[in-house]
């Protein structure tokens, strides 16, 4: 075998992530939790109490899922606390842990107050904090993976935040449609549709930023199959959203499909990163 043809015996030059599948789930849950929190504040201001209540509780639940995934990947709870020991602006994970802690703490407080009726003013303040940090929670994970040497992530660093924001809108809308009756879910449906339009636009930008050669990582193997699945689910979910105004069943179905589509998209991005690390050509030819 002539080793010059594909680097060193075709072996990876950079190491693929050691992160488990819990990490893309963390990205997904954090995405819709952030969007839901902001949507909750919108509902509150519009005097849509029912949607506000549902969405802030959903945001808190999303934070709980995120927390479990994060600690599950780190293996030991005290390792999460170890990250709060320093604040390092040069590390998106350090910045992210503080965003997550602020957003998670605020969402949990707001939801607890909402459900128990205790300390309402504090709960409302927490809700505002949760709503303002929500969008950051949704997109900071794009910076986290952009700031690596995985070619499929690093070379897409300017369009990944847009993709994560779009997917968050799509899934947060899905959460709203799933858990609130259609009569109260108008903003959720609109957000889902805005997300449904924004996701293909963001994917287009991602393709342009990467160029044909690097974009192959998103089309190959698991990444490719998941991308197709994500597109199919988002389209189906968006189409169903158009008919979800009166029918609660269709609304639930659409919400669930959109959430599944968002999850498939996050996994597609995760696997594209792995694939681009495992084949040295993505690292060599740039």
């Amino acid at each position: 075998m002539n080793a010059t043809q594909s680097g060193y015996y075709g072996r990876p030059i950079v190491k693929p992530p050691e992160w488990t599948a819990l990490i893309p789930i963390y990205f997904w849950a954090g995405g819709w939790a952030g969007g839901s929190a902001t949507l909750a504040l919108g509902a509150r201001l519009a005097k849509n109490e029912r949607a506000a209540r549902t969405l802030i509780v959903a945001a808190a639940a999303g934070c709980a899922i995120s927390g479990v995934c994060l600690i599950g990947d780190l293996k030991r709870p005290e390792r999460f606390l170890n990250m709060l020991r320093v604040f390092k602006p040069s590390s998106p994970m350090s910045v992210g842990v503080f965003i997550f802690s602020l957003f998670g703490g605020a969402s949990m407080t707001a939801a607890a107050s909402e459900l128990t009726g205790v300390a309402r003013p504090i709960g409302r303040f927490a809700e505002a904090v949760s709503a303002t940090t929500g969008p950051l929670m949704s997109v900071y994970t794009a910076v986290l993976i952009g700031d690596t040497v995985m070619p499929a992530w690093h070379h897409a660093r300017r369009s990944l935040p847009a993709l994560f924001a779009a997917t968050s809108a799509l899934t947060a809308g899905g959460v709203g449609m799933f858990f609130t009756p259609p009569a109260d879910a108008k903003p959720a449906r609109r957000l889902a549709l805005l997300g449904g339009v924004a996701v293909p636009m963001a994917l287009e930008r991602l393709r342009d930023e990467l160029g044909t050669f690097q974009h192959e990582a998103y089309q190959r193997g698991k990444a490719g199959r998941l991308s197709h699945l994500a597109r199919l689910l988002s389209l189906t979910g968006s189409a169903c959203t158009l008919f979800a105004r009166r029918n609660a069943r269709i609304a639930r179905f659409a919400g669930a499909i959109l959430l599944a589509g968002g999850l498939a998209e996050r996994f597609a991005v995760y696997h594209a990163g792995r694939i681009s690390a495992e084949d040295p050509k993505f690292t060599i030819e740039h």
Partner: protein
Amino acid sequence: MTLTIDLTTATSARAQSATYLGERRDRRGFFTDTTLCIGCKACEVACKEWNELPQDGYTFTGMSYDNTGELSGSTWRHVAFVEQFDDSRSRWLMESDVCKHCTHAGCLDVCPTGAIVRTEFGTVVIQDDVCNGCGYCVVACPFGVISERVDAKPEEHRTHGRGTMGKCTLCYDRLKTGEEPACAKACPTESIQYGNVDELRERAQLRLERVRESFDGAQLYLENENDGIGGGGSIFLLLDRPEVYGLPPHPVVPTKHLPQMWRAAGVAAAALAGAVALASLRL
């Protein structure tokens, strides 16, 4: 191995590396002259011995005499064997690879706990008692140097969950007592040379001029302070293109583009907030 380093250095990683350059302290590093390497792997063995690293198992890769495969959390020196047999030439390239101790180190930048620090020798070291095993450094290294240290005893591994990350410390403990790193000490041909980085750069330049007389493809790797990582603390003399040895031809520290990424994230977050506001309007 427990390292005692003033933890204040961990909190201002950027500033630290900047003042380091400004002060021109005595930065230590390696010059690995691959033209002298005979592939004996004494460096691999000496490194494992001194740093008490676990074995990697008896695997046969089929890649020439390289059954080590790659640098990892438990392998801090790795000898690459490249066989080039075609019509025009027949040669065997050997190269002892190691952590590059970058001037702008991606691992150090992204480490969220401050476990990775720049030492007084200008080297980059992971403090294993601070590391929480998040694995961010693994994907921030342009050279694929770092991975989880997997110990030989699987039962121990299970109880502790994911271990900590590991890489070359440039024998920080030996440097503290004025010794040279174990690999350089063990190298029988002086293919691995240890010393002040500026001196090593000059020496590498002189050596390149001589080697070029016989080998067209000879080139220095990571000696340029203006490259994507600000130059390496480990520099190499190679006889072929970097990728032939499994090295990235254009390494760039990922944090170089961090402001650009946060700007894009800020725009995306604002757009998400705007979309929510639009959706929430009473129309």
